[in-house]
């Protein structure tokens, strides 16, 4: 076993617990900063999407993983951020004003959505957030003066001091925002606020009897998470340069929740891993569609089977089928997500000959009722 011996309070308060992790994250940042000079524009734009999804994922990790509040309506917050950016850009507001302003506005909306969360828990909250998202979706389609309805809106390219930001400029903006959001999240988690979130998640009654102001922290969690998502929305709008209501549907919200389920519900690193996974699904699916039928044909030697496979794989529902299976698989077999895999791998490496899978055996869980008895 490897132990981390703490000899003073500073050891526990430091941002990076070990020097190795500080070096590792420094290297990661260096690679991200050097990326535009190393790789082509296709991969660069994929990384931009990964960063945007990471920001949303971090927001959801704070809300669902730490504060224990459910939301299946985060696409609405993304939409609010995106449409705020589109309108602000239309009137020539500079990006360094509307980027934080959109985050703030979305945060306020999130705070409002958090208000019913005070009286609701578990399933009711999930349904409420999802009703909110559907209502926002309808408003986007109907409020034509602001959102241009179903026709969608073009977004003017972002400019910084008169100069267009360009592709790599947008990339650096995304990296900057991601770093800020991740640092903010890490600092919230290791502060009294984060401990209050965890206390509320584990037992609201116990937390309240210890003096945690449930109302304040729950609404704050919502505001924070929504604000982060709104920030991501601004970047998303600029990345796509065109937004329309049908981009912010329930299935986008579900994709966001998948980020944290695949990554690991209570882990910032998990949010990044989940985001990478979600962005990679599409290219992988294309590869699968191109490669698998040929492979099947070669192995079985029958062209009929090959045709069958290619028809099946190009059916419209394949992506959602695979997403559904992934969700079920991760929830049943790896509730800790990819981050759990990462931790297991690390433990295996550090304790090499002595690793036992039983270290991570899950405790048996029993049905805990949410109803009063």
């Amino acid at each position: 076993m490897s132990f981390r011996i703490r000899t003073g309070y500073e050891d526990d308060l430091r941002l990076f617990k070990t020097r190795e992790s500080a070096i590792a994250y420094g290297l990661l940042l260096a690679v991200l900063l050097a990326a535009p000079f190393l790789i082509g524009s296709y991969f660069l734009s994929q990384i931009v999407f990964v960063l945007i999804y990471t920001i949303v994922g971090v927001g959801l990790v704070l809300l669902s993983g730490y504060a224990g509040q459910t939301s299946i309506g985060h696409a609405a917050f993304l939409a609010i951020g995106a449409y705020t950016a589109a309108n602000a850009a239309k009137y020539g507001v500079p990006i360094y004003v509307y980027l934080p302003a959109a985050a703030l506005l979305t945060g306020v909306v999130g705070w409002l959505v958090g208000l019913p969360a005070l009286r609701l828990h578990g399933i009711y909250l999930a349904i409420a957030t999802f009703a909110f998202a559907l209502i926002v979706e309808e408003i986007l389609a109907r409020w034509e003066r602001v959102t241009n309805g179903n026709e969608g809106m073009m977004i003017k390219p972002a400019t910084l001091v008169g100069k267009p930001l360009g592709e790599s400029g947008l990339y650096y903006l995304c990296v900057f925002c991601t770093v800020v959001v991740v640092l903010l999240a890490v600092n919230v988690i290791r502060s009294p606020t984060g401990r209050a979130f965890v206390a509320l998640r584990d037992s609201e009654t116990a937390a309240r009897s210890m003096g945690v102001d449930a109302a304040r922290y729950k609404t704050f969690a919502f505001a924070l998470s929504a604000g982060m998502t709104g920030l991501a929305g601004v970047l998303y709008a600029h990345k796509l340069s065109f937004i329309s209501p049908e981009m912010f549907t329930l299935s986008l919200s579900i994709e966001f929740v998948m980020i944290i389920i695949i990554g690991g519900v209570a882990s910032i690193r998990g949010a990044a891993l989940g985001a990478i996974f979600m962005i990679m699904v599409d290219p992988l699916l294309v590869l699968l569609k191109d490669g698998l039928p040929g492979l099947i044909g070669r192995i079985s030697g029958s062209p009929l089977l090959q045709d069958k496979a290619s028809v099946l794989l190009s059916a419209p529902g394949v992506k959602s089928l695979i997403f559904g299976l992934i969700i079920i698989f991760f929830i049943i077999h790896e509730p800790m997500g990819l981050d759990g895999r990462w931790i297991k791998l690390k433990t295996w490496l550090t304790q090499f000959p002595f690793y036992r899978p039983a270290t991570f055996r899950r405790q048996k869980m029993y049905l805990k009722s949410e109803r009063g008895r």
Partner: protein
Amino acid sequence: MLDFVQQTISGVAVGCVYGLIALGFVLIYKATEVVNFAQGELMMLGAFLSYTFIATLGLNYWLGFLACLVCMALLGMLMERLVVRPILGYPQFSIVMATIGLGMVLRSLAGMFWGTDDLRIETPFSKAVYHLGPLVIAADDLSIIVATALLCVILYAFFRFTRMGVAMQAVSQNMLAAYYMGIPVKRMFASIWAISAMVATAAGILLAPITFIHSNLGFLGLKAFPAAVLGGFTSIPGALVGGVIIGVVETLSGFYLPEGFKDIAAYVVLLAVLLVRPQGLLGGAMLKKV
């Protein structure tokens, strides 16, 4: 006034379908505290199966109905065994997501199997119209209302008078105590899922003549959430009353309010109810233990 009554009647018919789906939620939630987001997809699958049995295989309507019920009951049990039972006791959030995933799988499988065209079935009551004074009532609407009422009576009798129904009530009140009394809790869970799938199937087949059968029919299930919440989520009559209220509100707002309100009326009602009376109209107050 005539318009109002006419619209209300068709609203009640739609509302009965919402109520039946909501009933499926409530049955499962009462017994296992799992909220099945795939309930709408079960309804869709029921409708598709009825198409296969009645339109493709040419079975008699009633025979096809019965065959669908049997198939869907088996599917419900299978879903419970494969997906839901392993994750009982997990955080509510995981369970919700798992059932959403299940719904996605069912929806895309149905799309692959039955295609994306709109399908239709012929029913014994298609196209018939009854005149009640100046009112015009379509037989399809009437069939939904009558069937829902009938189903309610059957379910009520089942839970009140049969051994199995009483055992299910015991399980939903206190699982552990029920287990100590020798009730096979696991089998009860499977049966609850079977019953709930059958109720959804009935809703799907009744709805099939009114709307087309399509793989997106399952999204109608999302409208049943407001119904279930309105009724208190643990109350069987509540689910039906909630469904009817949602159906009527939706139809009337589609008729009187500007375009766009019809689609969100149900959710506006839902949010209002959650803010004012989170335990629903017929639900009891909840207290939570540490």
